[in-house]
């Protein structure tokens, strides 16, 4: 289990290899990569700036991971979340969930993403071509996705 915040990009293949190590009990690995999109409601995005709450982030990511591990038969999991100024096409987040079987791997990765989106202290600010910028609103659909996993509200 590992969680970290990074200004630099990540290498998916290398992160996955390091996470698995020599564990041949792992039969399925589900990964998710979140990326910066180039448009916001049809307007070109210039950059996306990610702010976070450093002292809380790690504690929260570890709580999310521990909960995922308790719910699913995960052999290993990883969360890497980037901060700072990102451009369209850049990677924002990497989640990896390893399990003996694919169903647990998929469910683990989805759970990690849903909880990350509603509990981890990151905030996105979009800057558009006209120089204007605005903080991204939380999506209700994200709250709903997280709440389908249970009854423990943030």
């Amino acid at each position, binding site marked *: 289990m590992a969680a970290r915040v990074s200004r630099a990009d990540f290498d998916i293949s290398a992160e996955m290899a390091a996470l698995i190590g020599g564990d041949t009990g792992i039969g399925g690995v589900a990964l998710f990569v979140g990326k910066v999109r180039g448009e916001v409601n049809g307007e070109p995005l210039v950059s996306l700036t990610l702010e976070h*709450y450093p002292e*809380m982030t790690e504690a929260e990511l570890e709580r999310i991971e521990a909960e995922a591990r308790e719910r699913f038969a995960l052999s290993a999991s990883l969360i890497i979340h980037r901060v700072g100024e990102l451009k369209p096409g850049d990677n924002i987040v990497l989640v990896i969930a390893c399990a003996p079987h694919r169903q647990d791997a998929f469910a683990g990765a989805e759970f990690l993403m849903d909880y990350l989106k*509603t509990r981890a*202290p*990151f*905030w996105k600010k979009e800057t558009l071509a006209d120089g204007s910028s605005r903080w991204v609103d939380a999506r209700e659909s994200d709250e709903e996705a997280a709440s389908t996993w249970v009854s423990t509200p*943030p």
Partner: protein
Amino acid sequence: MTDTKTNAEVTLRYFAWLRERAGRGEERLKLPPDVLTVGDLLRWQAGRGHPFDQAFAKPEAIRVAIDHAHVKPTAAIGAAREIAFFPPVTGG
């Protein structure tokens, strides 16, 4: 003893648009003794005057963490060392 705790200095932290509207990322102060819950604290912030009146005008849009853990408005502040205010998170 309880009075001492309630009157201890606490660090308040602000993130995203709350940081921008509050005009600061952090401050240290003593909370009034009658601010016992997170809900009390949100009301107290809204009553502090400029720029907090603006920043805390919609407390339902504000999330709070005590010592790096999410809490609800009903949570007791107790011996909190650090209390953070921020909009709903939007990472991922």
